[in-house]
C-alpha cells in the first residue's frame, strides 16, 4: 500500500483512523500482501486512485488542502470545511446564469441587411424542425437537460447536507449525479459557438448577445463544481455529517 503524499496533514477529521495489521511484507518494499479489517465499513478509510488504481489509506487533511496519488500524482480528494456553503451558493448562481443563458439571444448576425438571432432552445428546436430528431434529442440532453439536472441536484444535495437531513435521499442524488456528470457538455457547446462564429467571420456581421456571456459564466461555475469538487469529496462530506449525527 502506498502512503499519500499530501501538502500537509493534521488530525481535523472526526473519522477515526482504522487500525491495519500488517501480516507480511514483501521483500524490500512496503507493499502489504494481506490486511485485516475490523468490518467492511472500515474500507471507507481507503481510496483507490481513479487514474492508476493504486490503493491508498486516507489521511486527515488540513482545511483547504488536497491529497495526491503517490504513483501518478492525480488528485485523490480535498478537504474543505466550507464545501456545503460555497457548493450551495455556486449551484444557485449557476442555475440563475443557466436560465439567463436560455432566455436571451446567444448571437445575432446580419447578412445583407437581414438579421437573425439564436437562443439555446431555438438551436435545439431548429434541429427537430429540419428532421434531425436524433441530433436534436442528443443536443437537448447534452446541453439542456443534463446541465439543468446537475445544478438542481447539486442545489438540493448541498441544502440537505447543510440541514443534515435526508440520509437516503442524498445517497440517491449522488448516484444519479455520478451517472449524468459525464454527459454534460456545456463547455464543449461554448467552444462550438466560438468555432461557428469564426467560420462566419467575413460573411456576416456578428453581435454577441447577453446569453453568451451568461453561458460563459455558467460554464466556469460548471467546471468548478463538476471538475474541482469531486463526487468523492461529497461522499466524504456526507459520511462525516452522518457520522456526527450518529454520535449525537
Amino acid at each position, binding site marked *: *500500500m502506498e502512503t499519500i503524499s499530501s501538502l500537509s496533514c493534521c488530525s481535523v477529521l472526526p473519522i477515526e483512523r482504522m487500525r491495519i495489521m500488517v*501480516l507480511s511484507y514483501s521483500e524490500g518494499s512496503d*507493499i*502489504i*500482501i*494481506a*490486511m*485485516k*479489517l*475490523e468490518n*467492511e465499513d472500515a*474500507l*471507507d478509510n*481507503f*481510496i*483507490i486512485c*481513479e*487514474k*492508476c*488504481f493504486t*490503493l491508498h489509506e486516507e489521511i486527515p487533511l488540513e482545511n483547504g488542502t488536497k491529497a495526491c496519488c503517490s504513483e*501518478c500524482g492525480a488528485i485523490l480528494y480535498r478537504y474543505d470545511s466550507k464545501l456545503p456553503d460555497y457548493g450551495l451558493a455556486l449551484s444557485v448562481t449557476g442555475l440563475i446564469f443557466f436560465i439567463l443563458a436560455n432566455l436571451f439571444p446567444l448571437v445575432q*448576425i446580419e*447578412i445583407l441587411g*437581414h438579421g*437573425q438571432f*439564436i437562443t439555446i432552445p*431555438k*438551436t*435545439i428546436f*431548429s*434541429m427537430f424542425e*429540419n428532421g*434531425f430528431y*436524433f*441530433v436534436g434529442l*442528443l*443536443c437537448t440532453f*447534452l446541453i439542456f437537460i443534463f446541465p439543468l439536472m446537475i445544478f438542481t441536484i447539486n442545489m438540493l444535495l448541498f441544502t440537505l447536507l447543510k440541514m443534515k437531513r435526508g440520509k437516503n435521499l442524498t*445517497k440517491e442524488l*449522488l*448516484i444519479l449525479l*455520478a*451517472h449524468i456528470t*459525464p*454527459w454534460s*457538455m456545456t463547455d*464543449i*457547446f461554448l*467552444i*462550438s*459557438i466560438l*468555432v*461557428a462564429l*469564426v*467560420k*462566419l467571420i467575413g460573411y456576416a456581421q456578428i453581435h454577441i448577445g447577453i446569453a453568451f456571456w451568461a453561458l460563459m459564466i455558467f460554464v466556469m461555475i460548471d467546471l468548478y463544481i463538476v471538475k474541482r469538487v469531486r*463526487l*468523492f469529496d461529497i*461522499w466524504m462530506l456526507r459520511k462525516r455529517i452522518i457520522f456526527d449525527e450518529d454520535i449525537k
Partner: protein
Amino acid sequence: MIEIDEDKLIRCPVCGAVNIDKGKENRCRRCASAIYHHKSFSTEKSWAFLITAMIAYVPANIYPMLITKQFGSEEGNTLLGGVIMLWEHGSYPIAMIIFVASILIPVLKFLVLIYLLISVKYPIGKDKKVNKHKLYYMTEVIGPWSMIDVFVVAILAALIHLANIEIIAGMAATAFALSVFFTLLAAHAFDERLIKENK
C-alpha cells in the same frame, strides 16, 4: 475481523468506494450499484458499441455534413472537405480544431479502444510497459470533444436561415452524432478492472 488480499479490493465505478471483490455478484456496499464482474462476456458489450460506432463513422465521412444553399445553388461539404476548405481559406486554427475534434479524436479513440479490448484478452508480450490506465483515462477525457462538430452544425443551421442564404445540416450530422454517442458508450462499458487482472 476479515482478512483480505489487497488485490481483492475493487473500486466502485459509480461512487468510488473501495469494495471487497466477492466473485460473481458484486454490489457496492455504499451505493448498491453493480460492479461488473462477468468472466464469460467481459468485453463483448464494449465491442458491440465500438463496432456500431465504427459503422456509423463511415457514412459520417461520405455524406455531406453541411449543405449551403446560396441563391438557388446547393453545395455540400463533407467532414474532411470542410477542414480542407477552412485550411485553404486561411483559418488554420479553426481547421486544426475541427480536424482534431472530428477526425483525429474519433479515429484515435477507435484505435485505443480496439487495442485495449484486444490486449486485456490476449496479452501481447511487450505491452506491459504501456500504461493502459492512463490510456483509458485519456480516451475518457478527450472523447466528448468530438461533439464540437455536431454542435457547430446545429448552431450554423439554426443561425443561417435567411431568404437567400441557408445552411442545412446533412446526413452526416446524424451519422457522426451516432458515432460519437456509441464511442462514449463503448468507453463507459469497458471494464477498467480487466486491465489490472492482466498485469
